[in-house]
């Protein structure tokens, strides 16, 4: 209102100095808000949902919080003393550390025909891992790996392998090595037609000499398309078949409540094998886990326990006989440019 009044006043004055006053704006100026600004602001507002909490007796308040206070899963019993007597209850002392052979022999005792009578029971290595990454508060993702242990033992699961390679000689060798199905371009055609289904096979591997012919079925294979990174593409395809047929697959999983605690239970043999061969399997397994180690200070593998159901015994072995306890300083330093490589190969 006043703006219009002023303007009329100025208009009347403009008779005298019209050019100077024309550019003067006195009215309230409305700039239209930019498109989407209000919507953005609305979206920004966090809706606070008020949940009604009923009456809680004073002696029960804060109980849910108590439940959340979790115990550190990286157990440390170094405050306990070392036993000096020849007979002692375990609970007051540090865990005894066995060698891998001793641990297996102890399990063989409990599974003896006169006791549990399960001489072919599986032996598992339960490995606990500190999942901390290079940076603080950064943790390694869950990872899964497949390794071939030096001493074979029969496993319950059956694995099916589809192998692609060129040349009748090679195909023959691959089939002998243990591939469920091996072939070259004619197999590609069968897949395209639908007579061979990719879904029936657990693993798809290939020799680099056929990789160009596989391109037509790339869309069908999607992420299972053989590649070097996943370890499914190699010139030495016979060894690859053996690895996938007899290797053990394991997945290290982080704890839900404790990000820095990862654990995995891997079968490493059967009790009827000789203790030394099981020890060699443990050695290879721990070395394989160690390859994922981030380039940081401190422990990676924190503890290794040998178990064998149905016995509930847990026998601790020293993992640092097999792998290095800490990373050398030089390796840590030259890793600065490449950041935390914890890539899963399945």
């Amino acid at each position, binding site marked *: 209102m006043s703006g219009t009044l002023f303007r009329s006043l100025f208009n009347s004055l403009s008779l005298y100095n019209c050019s100077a006053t024309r550019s003067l704006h006195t009215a309230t100026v409305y700039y239209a808000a930019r498109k989407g600004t209000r919507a953005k602001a609305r979206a920004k507002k966090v809706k606070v949902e008020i949940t009604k909490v009923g009456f809680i007796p004073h002696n029960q308040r804060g109980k849910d919080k108590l439940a959340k206070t979790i115990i550190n899963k990286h157990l440390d019993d170094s405050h306990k003393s070392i036993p000096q*007597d020849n*007979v*002692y*209850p375990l609970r007051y002392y540090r865990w005894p550390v066995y060698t891998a052979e001793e641990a297996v022999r102890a399990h063989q005792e409990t599974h003896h025909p006169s006791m549990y*009578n399960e001489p072919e029971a599986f032996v598992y290595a339960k490995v606990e891992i500190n999942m901390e990454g290079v940076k603080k508060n950064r943790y390694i993702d869950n990872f899964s790996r497949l390794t071939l242990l030096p001493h074979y033992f029969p496993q319950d699961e059956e694995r099916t392998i589809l192998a692609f390679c060129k040349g009748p000689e090679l195909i023959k060798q691959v089939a002998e090595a243990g591939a469920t199905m091996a072939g070259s371009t004619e197999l590609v055609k069968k897949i395209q037609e639908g007579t061979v289904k990719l879904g029936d096979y657990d693993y798809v591997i290939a020799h680099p000499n056929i990789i160009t012919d596989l391109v037509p079925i790339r869309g069908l294979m999607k992420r299972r398309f053989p590649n070097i990174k996943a370890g499914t593409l190699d010139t030495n395809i016979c060894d690859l078949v053996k690895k996938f047929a007899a290797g053990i697959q394991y997945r290290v999983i982080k704890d839900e409540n404790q990000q820095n605690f990862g654990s995995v239970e891997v079968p490493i043999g059967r009790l009827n094998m000789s203790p030394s061969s099981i020890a060699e399997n443990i050695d290879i397994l721990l070395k394989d886990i160690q390859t994922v180690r981030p380039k940081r200070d401190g422990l990676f593998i924190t503890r290794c326990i040998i178990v064998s159901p149905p016995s509930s*015994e847990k026998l601790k072995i020293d993992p640092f006989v097999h792998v290095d306890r800490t990373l050398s300083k030089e390796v840590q330093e030259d890793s600065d440019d490449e950041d935390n490589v914890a890539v899963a190969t399945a």
Partner: protein
Amino acid sequence: MLGLRALLNKSTVIEQASFFQQTRNTFILKRRWPPPLHKKNGRVPKLKARHFVYDLIEDTNVNKKPDLKVILNQFVDGAGNVGDILSLRPNVAYKEFLLPGLAVYATPDNLLKYKAAENKSRASSDFSSPYVQRTINCLSRIVLQITMNKTTPWKLESWHIKTSLRKAGYIVPEEAIIMPPKEITGPDLTLQEKEFFITVKINNKEEVNVRCRIHHWATGLERLPWEEFHWKKPLEALFPEQAEILAKMTLPE
């Protein structure tokens, strides 16, 4: 009159002296605004209110006291033998060792005194180690379940006991186990309702009896039904000569 006053004075002085209490409250302070320096032979500047503002650096009253060293003057269960030097928290040392007279301060004199005593009494000490009594207590409390197979024939041997004890959380070497007088063979389901004891010789010196029961293990249809609180149930002795001692041993409640 004079004498009376002197007497009064004396009595009050004594009373005052008895009221002096030792306090260990040193507060280390720092001036927040330190007063300025003054010229040589110059006038000392007047201190202002702000010069009396202090920051607390340390309160020695709440500091953690260092551990106290004491020497044991007798065998103490779970602690050590005569002449052993323990480093303990002061409160624990006073209440549990010095007050009951189990230990003395580790002064140079006492150190010399107990060094001599230690050499003498080592041989005549009642226990082979300070923790033996605890181990004996633990082992005499348990009911050891020996899991033996229900289908394959077996003869109970000392390594079965050793393995069962390890499963139960006790490290016992085979040579420390003294087996029952007669051989036990199986599978024999009548053994399920019997008990016996073995003797464990700790450090080749102390002996403790461990109550044992045999459980026949099988899976599937062969499996024996679960019995609730089987370890609380009193059972018959397998060997009549052991019955008396077994009756004296307490069962868990």
